[in-house]
């Protein structure tokens, strides 16, 4: 790998580790110091490596530089009178040496994850903060990922950091008695981060995939440390594995969504499916079935493309269970689709009409599906309604092609 490729690669893998250790070292009040030291470290690499050549062990080189920069920073600010940052170095026994051992890196990342996903911070800020401080995403990348602009993201991050400071959030492991509760928040944030990538309408395939893999990587930290006691971590991981297996198959090169039934199974990642199965098994060790268990089981059945009675009976049952836990329009619609596969379109049509989701384009698409064999005109009317209220360009195009197909038939 040449310098041009190596540095961004190392930035991805190493900056998050150094940054977590520094944040842990200085505390939540001084996140900017950590950010500065990390950027300085990589800047040094950018300045030196092209001329002096890539060091034998680039990672060790970066760690050594980060350590030195930290020492210098502490020495400099300690001498600098009237500096606001002075107090922490005077009052506390803060060490000038940072610990970049594997153990401390992993602990610091976990503790940061808990801090960033603190219940006092809004969910969207948690996600943005996690991407910035734990995944090494730049402001521009986060803005792209959220289909937003830099200014909004900057404001959001600023507010989130202020909140962390004002609430005096410590970068530490939560108390034993609060672990389950705090983990729930972290899991939900990672679940949303993953969905942000998986369901996003973002045209940028790379960004989308990165959001998914970042969510998985952060979840792996929890997997190693807590999954034995809290099996739903396995369940969430299994869910992500099953969904990720289709990441390459569900969009074409233009970013157009390829419907499940039109996907080429050869493009599904078998190794991820197998990994998901292992974790789903591990998840069943507990006694309770969380929402993640149900969703992972559903995702498991979606890795079987063939329409079998067994498959749809299971899927229907799982959607019933999911709805018992928590109502959502998308679960209601999917449940009704599964119902049609088990009991036929006529039964499903009656149930679908009761859902009354008149602001949801998928609702009308589903009604069209159940009507298209017996009453083509009504089906077309439903599709037109769906197109009218859809806000996504890709979806509108998809509905148009369905209407065209029906007109031809």
């Amino acid at each position, binding site marked *: 790998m040449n310098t041009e490729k190596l540095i961004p690669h190392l930035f991805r893998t190493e900056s998050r580790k150094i940054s977590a250790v520094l944040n842990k070292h200085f505390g939540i009040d001084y996140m900017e110091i950590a950010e500065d030291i990390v950027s300085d470290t990589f800047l040094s690499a950018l300045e030196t490596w092209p001329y002096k050549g890539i060091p034998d062990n680039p990672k060790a080189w970066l760690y050594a530089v980060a350590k030195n920069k930290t020492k210098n920073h502490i020495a400099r600010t300690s001498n600098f009178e009237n500096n606001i940052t002075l107090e922490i170095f005077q009052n506390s026994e803060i060490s000038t040496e940072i610990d970049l051992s594997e153990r401390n890196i992993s602990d610091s990342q976990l503790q940061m994850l808990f801090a960033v996903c603190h219940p006092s911070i809004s969910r969207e800020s948690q996600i943005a903060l996690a991407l910035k401080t734990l995944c090494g995403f730049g402001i521009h990348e986060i803005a792209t990922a959220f289909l937003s602009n830099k200014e909004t993201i900057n404001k959001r991050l600023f507010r989130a950091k202020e909140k962390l400071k004002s609430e005096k959030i410590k970068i530490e492991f939560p108390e034993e008695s609060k672990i389950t509760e705090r983990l729930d928040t972290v899991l939900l944030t990672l679940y949303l981060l993953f969905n942000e990538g998986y369901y996003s309408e973002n045209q940028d395939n790379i960004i989308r995939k990165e959001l998914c893999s970042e969510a998985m990587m952060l979840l792996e930290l929890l997997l190693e440390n807590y999954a034995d006691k809290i099996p739903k971590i396995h369940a969430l991981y299994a869910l992500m594995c099953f969904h990720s297996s289709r990441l390459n198959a569900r969009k074409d090169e233009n970013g157009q969504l390829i419907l499940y039934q039109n996907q080429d199974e050869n493009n599904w990642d078998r190794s991820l499916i197998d990994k998901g199965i292992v974790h789903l098994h591990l998840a069943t060790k507990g006694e309770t079935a969380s929402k993640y268990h149900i969703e992972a089981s559903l995702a498991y059945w979606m890795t079987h493309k063939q329409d079998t009675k067994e498959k749809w009976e299971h899927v229907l049952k799982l959607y*019933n269970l999911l*709805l*018992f836990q928590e*109502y959502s329009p998308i*679960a*209601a619609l999917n449940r*009704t689709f599964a*119902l049609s596969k088990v009991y036929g379109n006529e039964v499903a049509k009656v149930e679908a009409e*009761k859902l009354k989701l008149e602001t949801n384009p998928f609702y009308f698409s589903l009604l069209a599906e159940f009507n298209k064999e017996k009453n083509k005109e009504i089906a077309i009317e439903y599709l037109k309604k769906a197109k009218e209220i859809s806000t996504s360009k890709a979806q509108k195009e998809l509905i148009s092609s369905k209407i065209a197909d029906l007109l031809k038939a």
Partner: protein
Amino acid sequence: MDEYVLIMRHENATGQVSPEQMQAWMQQTMDWLGGIAAQGKLLETGNGLSFDDARVVGHGGVVTNGPFGEIKETIGGYVIVKAESVEEAVEFAKGSPVLQGPGNTLEVRKVAKHDFK
């Protein structure tokens, strides 16, 4: 929107069902409740009430095994739904597989919340 309890009453209940019957009944019950939940109207899936170890405690502390044989109808379980009107709650009740048994009934009762203050 009010809360309604749907109380299932079984006629001549014995508690004797084959595992196959039980499984089929479970699936039908789940699909029935799933339909209500898909409308966002299911508050509690409730519970079945076991026919085993049932007792009736009467006036003066008289305890009998029962309620089988003592009364004609036995409460088999309940669910709680949300509905705009009693008519809507009745529509939900009509879908229950319990009604496949002749003589079985569903009682629809609006929840009157206690106001202990």
